[in-house]
Protein backbone atom coordinates (compact mmCIF):
# COMPACT_ATOMS: atom_id res chain seq x y z
CA UNK A 1 0.00 0.00 0.00
CA UNK A 2 1.42 3.36 -1.07
CA UNK A 3 0.27 6.88 -0.22
CA UNK A 4 0.49 9.87 -2.54
CA UNK A 5 -0.26 13.31 -1.07
CA UNK A 6 -0.92 16.19 -3.46
CA UNK A 7 -0.07 19.63 -2.05
CA UNK A 8 0.92 23.01 -3.44
CA UNK A 9 1.97 25.71 -0.98
CA UNK A 10 0.10 28.32 -2.98
CA UNK A 11 -3.65 27.80 -3.31
CA UNK A 12 -5.50 27.45 -6.58
CA UNK A 13 -2.72 25.81 -8.56
CA UNK A 14 -4.92 22.85 -9.53
CA UNK A 15 -4.43 20.22 -6.80
CA UNK A 16 -8.04 19.07 -6.68
CA UNK A 17 -8.52 18.95 -10.46
CA UNK A 18 -5.42 16.78 -10.75
CA UNK A 19 -6.41 14.48 -7.87
CA UNK A 20 -9.83 13.97 -9.47
CA UNK A 21 -8.18 12.95 -12.73
CA UNK A 22 -5.86 10.58 -10.86
CA UNK A 23 -8.96 9.14 -9.18
CA UNK A 24 -10.19 8.19 -12.64
CA UNK A 25 -6.83 6.71 -13.69
CA UNK A 26 -5.78 4.83 -10.56
CA UNK A 27 -6.83 1.22 -9.95
CA UNK A 28 -7.69 -0.17 -6.54
CA UNK A 29 -7.35 2.97 -4.44
CA UNK A 30 -8.90 4.87 -1.58
CA UNK A 31 -9.38 8.62 -1.89
CA UNK A 32 -9.07 11.15 0.92
CA UNK A 33 -9.89 14.85 0.84
CA UNK A 34 -7.62 16.29 3.52
CA UNK A 35 -8.38 19.91 2.62
CA UNK A 36 -10.99 19.85 5.37
CA UNK A 37 -11.54 23.58 5.75
CA UNK A 38 -12.29 24.17 2.08
CA UNK A 39 -13.09 20.69 0.78
CA UNK A 40 -13.90 20.60 -2.93
CA UNK A 41 -13.05 17.13 -4.21
CA UNK A 42 -16.65 15.98 -3.64
CA UNK A 43 -17.80 18.48 -6.28
CA UNK A 44 -16.02 16.40 -8.93
CA UNK A 45 -16.46 12.89 -7.50
CA UNK A 46 -20.12 13.14 -6.38
CA UNK A 47 -19.94 10.90 -3.31
CA UNK A 48 -22.83 8.98 -1.92
CA UNK A 49 -22.33 9.17 1.85
CA UNK A 50 -22.41 5.73 3.48
CA UNK A 51 -21.33 6.60 7.02
CA UNK A 52 -20.92 9.88 8.84
CA UNK A 53 -19.42 10.65 12.22
CA UNK A 54 -19.38 13.65 14.50
CA UNK A 55 -15.82 14.72 15.09
CA UNK A 56 -15.04 15.90 18.60
CA UNK A 57 -11.81 17.72 17.92
CA UNK A 58 -11.55 19.99 20.90
CA UNK A 59 -12.80 21.32 24.17
CA UNK A 60 -13.82 24.74 25.38
CA UNK A 61 -13.61 26.11 28.87
CA UNK A 62 -16.91 27.11 30.46
CA UNK A 63 -16.98 29.20 33.64
CA UNK A 64 -19.70 28.54 36.20
CA UNK A 65 -20.65 32.06 37.32
CA UNK A 66 -22.13 30.86 40.61
CA UNK A 67 -18.89 29.24 41.68
CA UNK A 68 -16.49 31.82 40.22
CA UNK A 69 -14.88 34.04 42.87
CA UNK A 70 -13.39 36.37 40.25
CA UNK A 71 -9.85 35.78 41.50
CA UNK A 72 -8.51 36.23 37.97
CA UNK A 73 -6.04 33.32 38.09
CA UNK A 74 -7.45 31.75 34.92
CA UNK A 75 -7.05 34.95 32.96
CA UNK A 76 -3.45 35.26 34.09
CA UNK A 77 -2.36 31.73 33.12
CA UNK A 78 -4.18 31.51 29.78
CA UNK A 79 -1.61 31.63 27.00
CA UNK A 80 -4.27 32.32 24.36
CA UNK A 81 -5.77 35.48 25.87
CA UNK A 82 -9.09 33.65 25.78
CA UNK A 83 -10.40 34.79 29.16
CA UNK A 84 -11.36 38.39 29.73
CA UNK A 85 -13.53 39.71 32.58
CA UNK A 86 -14.22 36.16 33.78
CA UNK A 87 -15.67 35.17 30.43
CA UNK A 88 -14.30 32.72 27.89
CA UNK A 89 -13.98 33.72 24.25
CA UNK A 90 -14.65 30.31 22.72
CA UNK A 91 -13.01 31.32 19.43
CA UNK A 92 -9.71 32.00 21.17
CA UNK A 93 -9.90 29.10 23.63
CA UNK A 94 -7.77 26.21 22.40
CA UNK A 95 -9.10 23.80 24.99
CA UNK A 96 -5.85 23.17 26.88
CA UNK A 97 -7.69 22.80 30.25
CA UNK A 98 -5.03 24.69 32.20
CA UNK A 99 -7.63 27.10 33.61
CA UNK A 100 -9.77 24.20 34.77
CA UNK A 101 -6.83 22.60 36.59
CA UNK A 102 -5.73 25.85 38.15
CA UNK A 103 -9.09 27.27 39.28
CA UNK A 104 -9.16 27.23 43.11
CA UNK A 105 -12.97 27.43 43.18
CA UNK A 106 -13.51 24.48 40.83
CA UNK A 107 -15.63 26.81 38.70
CA UNK A 108 -14.35 25.83 35.25
CA UNK A 109 -15.45 22.83 33.24
CA UNK A 110 -14.22 21.71 29.86
CA UNK A 111 -16.97 20.94 27.38
CA UNK A 112 -16.24 18.71 24.46
CA UNK A 113 -17.39 20.22 21.22
CA UNK A 114 -18.17 18.86 17.83
CA UNK A 115 -15.69 20.60 15.56
CA UNK A 116 -16.49 18.80 12.35
CA UNK A 117 -17.95 15.80 10.56
CA UNK A 118 -16.23 12.92 8.84
CA UNK A 119 -17.79 10.99 5.96
CA UNK A 120 -17.06 7.66 4.35
CA UNK A 121 -18.57 7.67 0.91
CA UNK A 122 -18.98 5.59 -2.17
CA UNK A 123 -18.00 7.11 -5.50
CA UNK A 124 -17.81 5.52 -8.91
CA UNK A 125 -14.03 5.93 -8.62
CA UNK A 126 -13.74 4.12 -5.29
CA UNK A 127 -14.21 4.88 -1.59
CA UNK A 128 -13.73 8.50 -0.52
CA UNK A 129 -13.09 9.74 3.01
CA UNK A 130 -13.87 13.41 3.41
CA UNK A 131 -14.82 15.87 6.10
CA UNK A 132 -16.33 19.17 6.93
CA UNK A 133 -14.85 21.50 9.50
CA UNK A 134 -17.40 23.23 11.73
CA UNK A 135 -17.85 26.95 11.15
CA UNK A 136 -14.98 28.95 12.65
CA UNK A 137 -13.60 25.85 14.35
CA UNK A 138 -9.91 25.26 14.87
CA UNK A 139 -7.88 22.10 15.17
CA UNK A 140 -8.18 21.23 11.51
CA UNK A 141 -4.91 19.26 11.79
CA UNK A 142 -6.65 16.74 14.07
CA UNK A 143 -9.52 16.38 11.63
CA UNK A 144 -7.08 15.84 8.76
CA UNK A 145 -5.38 13.11 10.78
CA UNK A 146 -8.76 11.45 11.36
CA UNK A 147 -9.54 11.51 7.61
CA UNK A 148 -6.12 10.16 6.72
CA UNK A 149 -6.15 7.33 9.29
CA UNK A 150 -9.70 6.32 8.29
CA UNK A 151 -8.57 6.16 4.65
CA UNK A 152 -5.66 3.96 5.76
CA UNK A 153 -8.00 1.63 7.67
CA UNK A 154 -10.30 1.26 4.66
CA UNK A 155 -7.35 0.71 2.35
CA UNK A 156 -6.05 -2.07 4.60
CA UNK A 157 -9.49 -3.69 4.83
CA UNK A 158 -9.99 -3.62 1.09
CA UNK A 159 -6.43 -4.47 0.21
CA UNK A 160 -6.17 -1.24 -1.77
CA UNK A 161 -2.82 -0.50 -3.35
CA UNK A 162 -2.93 3.28 -3.34
CA UNK A 163 -4.19 6.04 -1.08
CA UNK A 164 -4.65 9.30 -2.94
CA UNK A 165 -4.72 12.37 -0.71
CA UNK A 166 -5.85 15.85 -1.73
CA UNK A 167 -4.03 18.21 0.63
CA UNK A 168 -4.58 21.83 1.57
CA UNK A 169 -2.62 24.95 0.64
CA UNK A 170 -0.04 26.47 2.98
CA UNK A 171 2.66 24.77 5.04
CA UNK A 172 1.04 24.50 8.51
CA UNK A 173 -0.78 21.83 10.58
CA UNK A 174 -3.23 20.50 7.98
CA UNK A 175 -0.45 20.14 5.40
CA UNK A 176 1.90 18.44 7.84
CA UNK A 177 -0.95 16.17 9.02
CA UNK A 178 -1.75 15.17 5.42
CA UNK A 179 1.92 14.44 4.68
CA UNK A 180 2.42 12.13 7.66
CA UNK A 181 3.23 8.64 6.39
CA UNK A 182 3.16 9.64 2.70
CA UNK A 183 5.43 7.69 0.37
CA UNK A 184 5.54 10.51 -2.12
CA UNK A 185 4.32 14.11 -2.30
CA UNK A 186 3.31 15.69 -5.57
CA UNK A 187 3.66 19.47 -5.38
CA UNK A 188 1.50 21.23 -7.95
CA UNK A 189 2.90 24.65 -8.74
CA UNK A 190 2.49 27.36 -11.35
CA UNK A 191 5.15 29.50 -13.08
CA UNK A 192 4.41 32.68 -11.13
CA UNK A 193 6.74 34.32 -8.62
CA UNK A 194 4.18 33.50 -5.91
CA UNK A 195 4.01 29.88 -7.03
CA UNK A 196 7.80 29.60 -6.99
CA UNK A 197 8.13 31.19 -3.54
CA UNK A 198 5.50 28.85 -2.06
CA UNK A 199 6.97 25.79 -3.83
CA UNK A 200 10.25 26.56 -2.12
CA UNK A 201 8.54 26.68 1.28
CA UNK A 202 6.37 23.58 0.96
CA UNK A 203 9.26 21.64 -0.57
CA UNK A 204 11.17 22.64 2.55
CA UNK A 205 8.42 21.07 4.68
CA UNK A 206 8.76 17.77 2.76
CA UNK A 207 12.54 17.86 3.24
CA UNK A 208 12.10 18.64 6.94
CA UNK A 209 10.00 15.51 7.42
CA UNK A 210 12.04 13.41 5.02
CA UNK A 211 9.28 12.94 2.45
CA UNK A 212 10.27 12.43 -1.18
CA UNK A 213 8.65 14.96 -3.50
CA UNK A 214 8.12 15.59 -7.18
CA UNK A 215 6.73 18.58 -9.05
CA UNK A 216 3.97 19.28 -11.56
CA UNK A 217 4.03 22.68 -13.28
CA UNK A 218 0.46 23.62 -14.10
CA UNK A 219 -0.34 26.42 -16.58
CA UNK A 220 3.32 26.18 -17.64
CA UNK A 221 2.79 28.33 -20.75
CA UNK A 222 1.56 31.38 -18.75
CA UNK A 223 5.22 32.25 -18.24
CA UNK A 224 7.76 30.01 -19.97
CA UNK A 225 10.80 31.77 -18.46
CA UNK A 226 9.53 31.04 -14.96
CA UNK A 227 8.77 27.46 -15.99
CA UNK A 228 12.37 27.10 -17.10
CA UNK A 229 13.56 28.54 -13.80
CA UNK A 230 11.54 25.95 -11.87
CA UNK A 231 12.83 23.13 -14.09
CA UNK A 232 16.46 24.24 -13.67
CA UNK A 233 16.14 24.56 -9.90
CA UNK A 234 14.49 21.13 -9.68
CA UNK A 235 17.21 19.61 -11.81
CA UNK A 236 19.89 21.19 -9.65
CA UNK A 237 18.28 19.68 -6.56
CA UNK A 238 17.61 16.35 -8.19
CA UNK A 239 13.85 16.69 -7.99
CA UNK A 240 11.78 15.23 -10.76
CA UNK A 241 9.32 17.38 -12.72
CA UNK A 242 6.74 14.71 -13.52
CA UNK A 243 4.28 16.85 -15.45
CA UNK A 244 3.84 20.08 -17.37
CA UNK A 245 0.26 21.01 -18.10
CA UNK A 246 -0.62 23.96 -20.36
CA UNK A 247 -3.12 26.64 -19.40
CA UNK A 248 -6.38 25.04 -20.44
CA UNK A 249 -9.81 26.60 -20.11
CA UNK A 250 -11.23 23.06 -20.26
CA UNK A 251 -10.28 22.69 -16.59
CA UNK A 252 -12.92 25.31 -15.82
CA UNK A 253 -15.47 23.78 -18.22
CA UNK A 254 -14.93 20.34 -16.68
CA UNK A 255 -15.32 21.84 -13.22
CA UNK A 256 -18.61 23.48 -14.15
CA UNK A 257 -19.79 20.11 -15.50
CA UNK A 258 -18.63 18.46 -12.27
CA UNK A 259 -16.22 16.11 -14.02
CA UNK A 260 -12.51 15.31 -13.69
CA UNK A 261 -10.81 16.91 -16.70
CA UNK A 262 -9.72 13.56 -17.99
CA UNK A 263 -13.34 12.46 -18.45
CA UNK A 264 -14.31 15.72 -20.05
CA UNK A 265 -11.73 16.37 -22.71
CA UNK A 266 -9.20 14.55 -24.83
CA UNK A 267 -6.49 17.07 -25.47
CA UNK A 268 -2.89 17.76 -24.51
CA UNK A 269 -3.76 18.27 -20.83
CA UNK A 270 -5.33 14.85 -20.71
CA UNK A 271 -2.29 13.09 -22.14
CA UNK A 272 -0.02 15.11 -19.85
CA UNK A 273 -2.00 13.94 -16.81
CA UNK A 274 -1.91 10.32 -18.06
CA UNK A 275 1.87 10.47 -18.52
CA UNK A 276 2.29 12.10 -15.13
CA UNK A 277 0.27 9.33 -13.47
CA UNK A 278 2.48 6.68 -15.11
CA UNK A 279 5.60 8.47 -13.86
CA UNK A 280 4.17 8.64 -10.36
CA UNK A 281 3.26 4.95 -10.40
CA UNK A 282 6.86 4.15 -11.32
CA UNK A 283 8.10 6.26 -8.42
CA UNK A 284 5.69 4.90 -5.79
Amino acid at each position, binding site marked *: MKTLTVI*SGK*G*GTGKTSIVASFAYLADNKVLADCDVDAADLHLLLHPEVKKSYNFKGGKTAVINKDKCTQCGKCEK*VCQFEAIKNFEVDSLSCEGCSLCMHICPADAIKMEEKITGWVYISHTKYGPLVHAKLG*IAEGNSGKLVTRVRTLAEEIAREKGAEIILIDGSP*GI*GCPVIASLTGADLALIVTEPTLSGI*SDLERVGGVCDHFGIRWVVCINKFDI*NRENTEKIEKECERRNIKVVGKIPFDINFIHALVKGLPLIEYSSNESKSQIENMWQEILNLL
Partner: protein
Amino acid sequence: MTISVASGKGGTGKTTVATNLALALNDNVQFLDCDVEAPNAFIFLRPTLNDVKPVYSFFPQVVEEKCNFCGLCSKICEWNAIAVVNKKWLFFSQLCHSCSACWQLCPEKALKKEKKLKGVVEKGKAFGIDFVQGKLTVGEAVSPPIIKAVKKEINKEKIVIIDVAPGTGCPMVEGVKESDFCILVTEPTPFGFNDLILAIGVLKELTIPFGVVINRSDIGDDKVEDFCRKNNIPVLLRLPFDRKIARAYSEGKAIVKEDKSWKEKFIELFEKIKEEYQNTERAKV
Protein backbone atom coordinates in the same frame (compact mmCIF):
# COMPACT_ATOMS: atom_id res chain seq x y z
CA MET B 1 -10.43 51.24 9.27
CA THR B 2 -9.25 47.65 9.01
CA ILE B 3 -10.08 45.75 5.83
CA SER B 4 -9.26 42.05 5.59
CA VAL B 5 -9.05 40.22 2.28
CA ALA B 6 -9.96 36.53 2.50
CA SER B 7 -11.28 33.86 0.17
CA GLY B 8 -12.01 30.32 1.27
CA LYS B 9 -10.60 28.83 -1.89
CA GLY B 10 -6.93 29.50 -2.52
CA GLY B 11 -5.59 31.13 -5.64
CA THR B 12 -8.68 33.25 -6.32
CA GLY B 13 -6.76 36.52 -6.21
CA LYS B 14 -6.62 37.69 -2.57
CA THR B 15 -3.09 39.00 -2.86
CA THR B 16 -3.88 40.66 -6.20
CA VAL B 17 -6.84 42.50 -4.67
CA ALA B 18 -5.09 43.37 -1.40
CA THR B 19 -1.86 44.67 -2.96
CA ASN B 20 -3.56 46.60 -5.77
CA LEU B 21 -5.97 48.19 -3.31
CA ALA B 22 -3.02 49.25 -1.14
CA LEU B 23 -1.08 50.62 -4.13
CA ALA B 24 -4.10 52.45 -5.53
CA LEU B 25 -4.64 54.25 -2.20
CA ASN B 26 -0.92 54.47 -1.37
CA ASP B 27 -1.28 57.24 1.23
CA ASN B 28 -2.01 56.49 4.85
CA VAL B 29 -2.06 52.74 4.26
CA GLN B 30 -0.65 49.95 6.40
CA PHE B 31 -0.41 46.55 4.75
CA LEU B 32 -0.27 43.33 6.79
CA ASP B 33 0.51 40.03 5.11
CA CYS B 34 -1.13 37.54 7.47
CA ASP B 35 -0.80 34.60 5.07
CA VAL B 36 2.22 33.61 7.14
CA GLU B 37 2.46 30.10 5.67
CA ALA B 38 2.76 31.32 2.11
CA PRO B 39 3.29 35.10 2.12
CA ASN B 40 3.39 36.59 -1.36
CA ALA B 41 2.43 40.26 -1.06
CA PHE B 42 6.10 41.26 -0.86
CA ILE B 43 6.49 40.08 -4.46
CA PHE B 44 4.09 42.80 -5.66
CA LEU B 45 4.83 45.54 -3.12
CA ARG B 46 8.61 45.07 -3.11
CA PRO B 47 9.13 46.58 0.33
CA THR B 48 12.44 47.61 1.82
CA LEU B 49 12.50 45.66 5.05
CA ASN B 50 14.34 47.27 7.91
CA ASP B 51 13.07 45.53 11.01
CA VAL B 52 12.85 41.84 11.92
CA LYS B 53 11.28 40.58 15.12
CA PRO B 54 11.53 36.93 16.08
CA VAL B 55 8.39 35.17 17.28
CA TYR B 56 9.10 32.52 19.87
CA SER B 57 6.92 29.93 21.42
CA PHE B 58 7.58 28.09 24.62
CA PHE B 59 7.86 24.39 25.12
CA PRO B 60 8.66 22.12 28.07
CA GLN B 61 11.95 20.47 28.78
CA VAL B 62 12.44 17.91 31.51
CA VAL B 63 14.93 18.34 34.34
CA GLU B 64 15.78 14.66 34.73
CA GLU B 65 16.96 14.86 38.38
CA LYS B 66 13.62 16.31 39.46
CA CYS B 67 11.24 14.17 37.38
CA ASN B 68 9.72 11.17 39.15
CA PHE B 69 7.89 10.02 36.01
CA CYS B 70 4.47 10.40 37.59
CA GLY B 71 3.03 10.99 34.12
CA LEU B 72 0.72 13.85 35.08
CA CYS B 73 2.04 16.09 32.28
CA SER B 74 1.33 13.40 29.73
CA LYS B 75 -2.17 12.89 31.11
CA ILE B 76 -3.18 16.55 31.06
CA CYS B 77 -1.67 17.43 27.68
CA GLU B 78 -4.66 17.83 25.37
CA TRP B 79 -2.50 17.36 22.29
CA ASN B 80 -0.68 14.20 23.35
CA ALA B 81 2.62 15.98 22.96
CA ILE B 82 4.15 14.25 25.99
CA ALA B 83 4.55 10.55 26.70
CA VAL B 84 6.07 9.00 29.82
CA VAL B 85 7.10 5.39 29.29
CA ASN B 86 9.60 3.17 31.10
CA LYS B 87 11.06 6.03 33.09
CA LYS B 88 11.53 8.05 29.96
CA TRP B 89 10.04 11.47 29.30
CA LEU B 90 9.28 11.92 25.59
CA PHE B 91 8.22 15.11 23.86
CA PHE B 92 6.72 15.59 20.39
CA SER B 93 7.29 19.24 19.62
CA GLN B 94 5.09 19.31 16.48
CA LEU B 95 2.03 18.63 18.62
CA CYS B 96 2.76 21.18 21.36
CA HIS B 97 0.48 24.23 21.47
CA SER B 98 2.58 26.03 24.10
CA CYS B 99 -0.36 26.15 26.51
CA SER B 100 2.04 25.94 29.49
CA ALA B 101 -0.20 23.50 31.41
CA CYS B 102 2.54 20.86 31.81
CA TRP B 103 5.19 23.06 33.36
CA GLN B 104 2.74 25.06 35.44
CA LEU B 105 1.08 21.97 36.89
CA CYS B 106 4.07 19.66 37.37
CA PRO B 107 4.06 18.81 41.10
CA GLU B 108 7.84 18.30 41.14
CA LYS B 109 8.58 21.47 39.17
CA ALA B 110 10.55 19.18 36.91
CA LEU B 111 9.65 20.91 33.65
CA LYS B 112 11.23 24.16 32.62
CA LYS B 113 10.09 26.28 29.74
CA GLU B 114 12.38 26.75 26.81
CA LYS B 115 11.80 28.96 23.81
CA LYS B 116 11.93 28.11 20.18
CA LEU B 117 11.83 30.34 17.11
CA LYS B 118 8.54 29.76 15.30
CA GLY B 119 8.67 32.57 12.80
CA VAL B 120 9.40 36.23 12.24
CA VAL B 121 7.58 39.52 11.78
CA GLU B 122 9.26 41.79 9.23
CA LYS B 123 8.53 45.48 8.79
CA GLY B 124 9.42 48.07 6.24
CA LYS B 125 8.20 50.52 3.60
CA ALA B 126 6.78 49.84 0.18
CA PHE B 127 6.25 53.05 -1.82
CA GLY B 128 4.14 55.09 0.64
CA ILE B 129 2.83 52.01 2.40
CA ASP B 130 3.80 50.76 5.85
CA PHE B 131 4.46 47.08 5.26
CA VAL B 132 4.36 44.24 7.80
CA GLN B 133 4.58 40.53 7.06
CA GLY B 134 4.75 37.36 9.10
CA LYS B 135 6.60 34.23 8.10
CA LEU B 136 6.10 30.85 9.73
CA THR B 137 9.35 28.90 9.97
CA VAL B 138 9.36 25.99 7.51
CA GLY B 139 8.59 22.75 9.36
CA GLU B 140 6.56 24.48 12.08
CA ALA B 141 2.86 23.65 12.24
CA VAL B 142 1.02 26.33 14.19
CA SER B 143 0.60 29.64 12.40
CA PRO B 144 -1.89 31.64 14.57
CA PRO B 145 0.81 32.92 17.00
CA ILE B 146 2.67 34.47 14.03
CA ILE B 147 -0.56 35.99 12.73
CA LYS B 148 -1.27 37.42 16.19
CA ALA B 149 2.24 38.90 16.31
CA VAL B 150 1.68 40.59 12.92
CA LYS B 151 -1.64 42.00 14.07
CA LYS B 152 -0.06 43.45 17.21
CA GLU B 153 1.57 45.91 14.78
CA ILE B 154 -1.77 47.34 13.61
CA ASN B 155 -1.78 51.12 13.45
CA LYS B 156 -5.40 52.23 13.83
CA GLU B 157 -4.61 55.69 12.46
CA LYS B 158 -4.14 54.15 9.04
CA ILE B 159 -6.23 52.29 6.51
CA VAL B 160 -5.16 48.77 7.41
CA ILE B 161 -5.29 46.14 4.66
CA ILE B 162 -4.83 42.52 5.72
CA ASP B 163 -3.96 39.73 3.29
CA VAL B 164 -5.44 36.61 4.92
CA ALA B 165 -4.58 32.91 4.46
CA PRO B 166 -6.91 30.79 2.32
CA GLY B 167 -9.34 28.28 3.81
CA THR B 168 -11.74 28.69 6.71
CA GLY B 169 -9.64 27.21 9.52
CA CYS B 170 -7.71 28.88 12.36
CA PRO B 171 -5.33 30.93 10.16
CA MET B 172 -8.27 32.45 8.29
CA VAL B 173 -10.25 33.11 11.49
CA GLU B 174 -7.21 34.69 13.16
CA GLY B 175 -6.58 36.84 10.08
CA VAL B 176 -10.10 38.29 9.70
CA LYS B 177 -10.85 38.60 13.43
CA GLU B 178 -11.65 42.14 14.58
CA SER B 179 -11.52 43.63 11.10
CA ASP B 180 -14.14 46.25 10.26
CA PHE B 181 -14.86 44.83 6.84
CA CYS B 182 -13.85 41.77 4.86
CA ILE B 183 -13.45 41.47 1.11
CA LEU B 184 -14.11 37.89 0.00
CA VAL B 185 -12.39 37.19 -3.28
CA THR B 186 -13.90 34.35 -5.29
CA GLU B 187 -14.15 32.97 -8.80
CA PRO B 188 -17.31 31.85 -10.60
CA THR B 189 -16.60 28.12 -10.47
CA PRO B 190 -18.18 25.39 -8.33
CA PHE B 191 -15.02 25.38 -6.14
CA GLY B 192 -15.04 29.15 -5.75
CA PHE B 193 -18.76 29.12 -4.94
CA ASN B 194 -18.57 26.25 -2.43
CA ASP B 195 -15.69 27.84 -0.52
CA LEU B 196 -17.28 31.31 -0.67
CA ILE B 197 -20.30 29.96 1.21
CA LEU B 198 -18.02 28.40 3.84
CA ALA B 199 -16.13 31.68 4.25
CA ILE B 200 -19.39 33.63 4.55
CA GLY B 201 -20.40 31.24 7.35
CA VAL B 202 -17.27 32.21 9.30
CA LEU B 203 -17.78 35.96 8.78
CA LYS B 204 -21.41 35.71 9.91
CA GLU B 205 -20.29 33.84 13.02
CA LEU B 206 -17.78 36.62 13.72
CA THR B 207 -20.30 39.33 12.71
CA ILE B 208 -17.91 40.98 10.27
CA PRO B 209 -19.57 42.86 7.39
CA PHE B 210 -18.37 41.73 3.98
CA GLY B 211 -18.63 42.13 0.22
CA VAL B 212 -17.50 40.00 -2.69
CA VAL B 213 -14.94 40.55 -5.45
CA ILE B 214 -15.34 38.18 -8.38
CA ASN B 215 -12.09 37.40 -10.12
CA ARG B 216 -11.99 35.90 -13.64
CA SER B 217 -15.61 37.03 -13.69
CA ASP B 218 -16.21 36.10 -17.34
CA ILE B 219 -15.45 32.38 -17.04
CA GLY B 220 -17.30 29.53 -15.32
CA ASP B 221 -20.96 29.82 -14.39
CA ASP B 222 -23.45 32.28 -12.85
CA LYS B 223 -23.94 30.70 -9.43
CA VAL B 224 -21.85 33.20 -7.49
CA GLU B 225 -23.61 36.18 -9.11
CA ASP B 226 -27.06 34.64 -8.57
CA PHE B 227 -26.29 33.82 -4.95
CA CYS B 228 -25.02 37.34 -4.20
CA ARG B 229 -28.05 38.91 -5.85
CA LYS B 230 -30.53 36.72 -3.98
CA ASN B 231 -28.84 37.27 -0.64
CA ASN B 232 -28.20 40.99 -1.03
CA ILE B 233 -24.45 40.55 -0.86
CA PRO B 234 -22.69 43.43 -2.60
CA VAL B 235 -20.43 42.50 -5.50
CA LEU B 236 -17.80 45.20 -5.09
CA LEU B 237 -15.66 44.53 -8.16
CA ARG B 238 -15.39 42.17 -11.10
CA LEU B 239 -12.01 41.36 -12.64
CA PRO B 240 -12.28 39.68 -16.05
CA PHE B 241 -9.94 36.88 -17.05
CA ASP B 242 -7.14 38.32 -19.09
CA ARG B 243 -3.98 36.46 -20.09
CA LYS B 244 -2.13 39.79 -19.86
CA ILE B 245 -3.16 40.16 -16.20
CA ALA B 246 -2.15 36.54 -15.56
CA ARG B 247 1.23 37.19 -17.19
CA ALA B 248 1.78 40.41 -15.18
CA TYR B 249 0.86 38.51 -12.01
CA SER B 250 3.37 35.78 -12.85
CA GLU B 251 6.09 38.44 -13.06
CA GLY B 252 5.13 40.05 -9.78
CA LYS B 253 3.72 43.18 -11.41
CA ALA B 254 0.77 45.05 -9.92
CA ILE B 255 -2.02 45.82 -12.42
CA VAL B 256 -2.67 49.31 -11.03
CA LYS B 257 0.92 50.17 -11.93
CA GLU B 258 0.54 48.73 -15.43
CA ASP B 259 -2.80 50.32 -16.31
CA LYS B 260 -4.23 53.63 -14.96
CA SER B 261 -7.85 52.57 -15.46
CA TRP B 262 -7.34 49.83 -12.88
CA LYS B 263 -6.15 52.33 -10.33
CA GLU B 264 -9.50 54.11 -10.61
CA LYS B 265 -11.37 50.84 -10.24
CA PHE B 266 -9.54 50.00 -7.03
CA ILE B 267 -10.16 53.48 -5.61
CA GLU B 268 -13.82 52.95 -6.45
CA LEU B 269 -13.64 49.61 -4.65
CA PHE B 270 -12.42 51.40 -1.53
CA GLU B 271 -15.24 53.97 -1.78
CA LYS B 272 -17.78 51.14 -1.98
CA ILE B 273 -16.27 49.46 1.05
CA LYS B 274 -16.45 52.69 3.03
CA GLU B 275 -20.09 53.07 2.06
CA GLU B 276 -20.93 49.47 2.98
CA TYR B 277 -19.12 49.84 6.28
CA GLN B 278 -20.91 53.08 7.13
CA ASN B 279 -24.24 51.49 6.28
CA THR B 280 -23.66 48.60 8.66
CA GLU B 281 -22.45 50.99 11.38
CA ARG B 282 -25.61 53.05 10.94
CA ALA B 283 -27.73 49.90 11.06
CA LYS B 284 -26.12 49.05 14.42
CA VAL B 285 -27.18 52.41 15.86
